[in-house]
């Protein structure tokens, strides 16, 4: 756990000139650009530990065996069974196939959402056409409608098309997102100068060329953010996949985990190994792009 405290490294750099660390008493300063004190770091480290502990403990439990996990007190450190349990989860519990399925599903949804949201967001932000405002209102109005409200007809459609237990049953209904359209529209209003589009038109560029050479380059940062947020959501989607897919057909990771949890394999350490396998790809994404994801959520918050 020692790696969790960058606050420990504070003294290695030159001290800041503010001198407020001790001087809570002296002059009261404006609250925004102050440096955090020891208390601030202590509380943040506490919440960091709480945020990470369940994940670390998943790995600890996955490295033990069922027998050890049935004893009190629970283990606090790693055992030697991690790779054995991962292997069992990978083969016996279908996690290998489930990971592949989830990669296909989340990848397709991400590509579709980013592409279609950028096109529609561009049209709503910069082009003129009839019914524009009504259509936009429709998009915004349904942005927060939860999936439960349409799940029964969706299931009837999927059953009629005989898509049950096939990946398109979870890809196609989630392929576009009202939030994505709204997000891209808000971004492009500010980030894409209208003069640039007009200049391209004067040069005789078609709309498709404008999208390719002007809109996509301007939208790239927002597309990246939307892509990451969509990927996380699609990877973790739960409600619809467990209705449309089954454990023994072509499950996504979440469906496979549900099967594990139901006692398909009652070995707790294998269950934890499965949970670990299902979470690791996203954790990798977070380690690589955490900064951008944080930026994206904060950016979306201010604009939305």
């Amino acid at each position, binding site marked *: 756990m020692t790696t*969790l405290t960058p606050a420990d490294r504070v003294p290695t750099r030159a001290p800041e000139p503010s001198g407020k660390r001790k001087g809570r008493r002296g002059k*009261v300063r*404006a*609250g*925004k650009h102050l*440096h*955090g004190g020891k208390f601030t*770091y202590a*509380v*943040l480290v506490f919440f*960091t530990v*709480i*945020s990470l502990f*369940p994940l670390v*403990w*998943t790995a600890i439990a996955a490295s033990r065996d069922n027998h050890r996990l049935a004893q*009190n007190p*629970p283990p606090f450190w790693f055992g030697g069974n991690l790779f054995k349990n991962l292997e069992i989860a990978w083969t016996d519990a279908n996690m290998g196939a489930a990971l592949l399925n989830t990669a296909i599903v989340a990848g397709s949804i991400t590509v579709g959402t980013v592409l279609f949201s950028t096109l*529609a967001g*561009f049209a709503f932000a910069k082009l003129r*056409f009839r019914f524009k405002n009504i259509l936009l209102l429709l998009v915004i109005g*349904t942005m*927060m*409608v*939860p999936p*439960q*409200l*349409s*799940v*029964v*007809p*969706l*299931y*009837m459609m999927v059953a009629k098309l005989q898509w049950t237990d096939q990946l398109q049953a979870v890809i*196609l*209904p*989630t*392929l*576009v997102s*009202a939030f994505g359209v709204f997000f891209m529209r808000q971004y492009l209003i500010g980030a894409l100068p209208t003069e640039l589009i007009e200049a391209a038109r004067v040069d005789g560029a*078609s*709309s498709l060329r404008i*999208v390719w050479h002007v809109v996509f380059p301007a939208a790239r940062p927002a597309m990246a953010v939307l892509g990451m947020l969509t990927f996380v959501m699609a990877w*973790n989607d*739960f*409600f619809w996949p467990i209705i449309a897919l089954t454990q023994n057909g072509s499950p996504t*990771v*979440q469906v496979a*985990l*549900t099967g594990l949890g139901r006692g398909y394999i009652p070995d707790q350490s294998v*269950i934890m190994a499965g*949970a670990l396998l*299902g979470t690791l790809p996203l*954790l990798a994404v*977070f380690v690589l792009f955490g*900064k951008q994801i*944080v930026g994206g959520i*904060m950016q979306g*918050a*201010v604009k939305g």
Partner: protein
Amino acid sequence: MRSERRSRLYRWDLKWSPYAFVAPFFVFFLAFGLFPLLYTGWASLHQVELTAPNDMEWIGLRNFSRLMEDEFFWNALRNTVTIGVLSTVPQLLIALGIAHLLNYKLRGSMFFRVAILTPYATSVAAATLVFVMLFGRDIGMINWALGQVGVGPVDWENGEWTSQLAVSTIVVWRWTGYNALIYLAAMQAIPNDLYESAALDGATRWQQFVHVTVPSLRPTILFTVVVSTIGATQLFGEPLLFNRGAGATGGANHQFQTLGLYLYEQGWVNLHLGRASAIAWAMFLILLLIGAVNWLVGRRLRKSS
């Protein structure tokens, strides 16, 4: 000749390409978003069984009248409300506090931001499976820790309040960091002059937080309340997996069965798709109610400021 054709093509392009750009979105949106949403209302007036989902028999409002007399429906509604309060209130309060701390100049601030967001990257399934073990009665880490301070083993899963508290804990764990970042973004948009003039008036840090930060954050707080409430209304994965043996009942005595879970049980365990649609419409009404309250509160806030 050529230039005329070109200009006609140009006008055609200008007129129709906007529709082409929004078309892919709207095709999928109409087919898989709007149509099912409206059709749920139609299906709720029928008897439909999961075994023959395209075989519908008109029964009018019977699904709804049955729901009104259904003790499990009211139980699920009550549970949804209590779990919603137990998860939303602490989640947003803690998020507000964390955001306030993150708003200081910090070393490693990006590390803290990413770290508190990692629960958001953990799926409902993975998180719940871990928390089930942590909340275990005889071997769980939480009861072990409570035992160290002399609190006897708590039967988290079988008690009414304890199970709802445990389910809420999973929600709080997953979403607090996300909300903290949203608050942080809004805090960074507050102009510093406000703090400076408050400081000149002799306001302490706490007073600055109460009288400058929180009022400036009101629209954002309202937004997060709405989003979290909608999330709480559809709570499903956590209660489903919290008791793996009981299927979709939400515990032996339905003690943590939510509306979302009850909908699933009616539709996909008991095979009554029509009744599931009626529950969906009841949820829809609740959401409309939340929306109306939100609109009224928002209007009052705008008037008062």
